[in-house]
């Protein structure tokens, strides 16, 4: 059943402030690594809004997190970077009704000096332009395929990276001339790469679902954290990092 047991009601002042009662003063959030910055910030404001409560984050690849949850990890909230990984958890009946809380859209990332003079998607088909894409198995790769399909372009990348950060690193170091990455990543790179919008990006939007987990030990706190993410405050933090609203 759900972890919140009213019988074990807190004895200290801390429990009073934990509005949901129960002994839980901790909420454990499993979140995709790409949410590291934003969720850490949201966690801090959650903790100040609920004194005595701590938010424990476990950041990692969405797939790993899903795997851990299926294997019985004591998580309260799961925020995934793709619906597919969330599905692993819902399929195991460990979470119900995930909500999409943000979307992320692709941009063309090029090194700050843009050596290959890329300025639209079509330029990536030039065989002299070294392109890095995410592997199809990871969300940004799936999105890239969708976008390129939508544009009817065939790109031969030199590499299919395991995640978007690795792809971005290749651009930052100038190893490739262009890559398709999320807008959030371009913003996070703080000017080391230049982002170029392209219209087909709209056809390959990636949804980030969030859900409380069925066996969450800190059930009510978990709900409150999800609420915070979905609130205007959450939206502000996420948009500032480059995410689109749902």
């Amino acid at each position: 059943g759900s972890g919140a047991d009213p019988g074990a009601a807190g004895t200290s002042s801390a429990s009073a402030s934990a509005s949901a009662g129960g002994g839980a003063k901790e909420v454990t959030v499993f979140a995709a690594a790409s949410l590291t910055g934003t969720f850490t910030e949201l966690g801090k404001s959650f903790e100040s809004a609920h004194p005595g409560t701590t938010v424990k984050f476990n950041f990692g690849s969405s797939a790993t997190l899903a795997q851990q949850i299926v294997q019985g990890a004591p998580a309260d909230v799961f925020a995934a970077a793709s619906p597919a990984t969330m599905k692993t958890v819902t399929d195991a009946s460990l979470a119900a009704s995930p909500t999409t809380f943000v979307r992320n859209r692709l941009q063309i990332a090029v090194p700050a000096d843009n050596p290959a003079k890329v300025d639209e998607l079509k330029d990536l088909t030039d065989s002299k332009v070294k392109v890095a894409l995410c592997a199809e198995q990871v969300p940004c790769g799936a999105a890239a395929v969708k976008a390129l399909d939508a544009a009817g372009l065939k790109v031969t990348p030199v590499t299919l990276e395991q995640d978007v950060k690795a792809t971005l690193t290749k651009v930052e170091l100038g190893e490739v001339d262009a890559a398709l990455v999320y807008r959030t990543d371009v913003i996070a790179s703080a000017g080391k790469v230049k982002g170029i919008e392209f219209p087909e990006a709209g056809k390959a939007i990636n949804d980030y679902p969030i859900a409380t987990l069925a066996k969450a030990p800190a059930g009510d706190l978990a709900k409150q954290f999800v609420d915070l993410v979905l609130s205007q405050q959450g939206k502000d933090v996420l948009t500032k990092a480059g995410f689109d609203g749902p």
Partner: protein
Amino acid sequence: MSPSPPNQPGRPEQVESPGSRRGSGRRSAGGREVAGRLPWMLVVPALAGLVFLVLPLAGLLIRAPWSTLPQRLAAPHVLEALRLSLVCASVATAVCLLLGVPLAWLLARVSFPGRRLVRALVTVPLVLPPVVGGVALLLVLGRRGLVGQWLEASFGITLPFTTAGVIMAEAFVAMPFLVISVEGALRGADQRFEEAAATLGASRWTVFCRVTLPMVMPGVVAGAVLCWARALGEFGATITFAGNFPGTTRTMPLAVYLALETEPEAAIVLSLVLLVVSVVILASLRDRWVSAS
């Protein structure tokens, strides 16, 4: 010279008799029996260690999708990745042997100023998280790297995104295993045999090839096994430095990692394939090496 000796001289013919007098027969006291009881203080932890290492394998085996296994194995990209993995790990090991064994020798046999520091620096790639190792390689050997720039300008060689890059990355990550292993073996070896070789006119190079190396062969084999296995399982530095493209740079660990993102069962199958192949190779090769030396 008295003709009457005080003792009866023993005759060869007498030799057999006392044994048979006692009727002992040919009761065999085999090697095992004589060698002494096995100490449980060693056997118990050894078995615990073995269980600890092997049990997780059981988990994988149970979880493996046995019914769909044949199809999954037949997929061409599996064999491709496997072949690439084996080739790259083997070539990387060869490179490591070529450079690492001399380095180990230098550390163990030649005293020069700064040896302590050099010995510690050799462990650098060991401790560096592999992804950072990959980044470091890019910073040096990448298109805009310190050396890479020059390599590309002078020879038109680019290492990232090539199979050579995979080998570089694997060698970088795996070489310390070889060096440290071999250095340990060299330090444990009796140097007086090398002295004996020198008195026979053997130069230090000949001594190294014909005396030192054969004598520390078990250590070199152990080091090469570690090196090969580490190279075979290498993921972070490889994907960071060499990228991931089927046929040229996608080794098994990369395939496994990506499979894990979408279908964990496939990842387990791939891992098991890697496992079985490498265990078989090691079991056959290592036994020959180990007994040959």
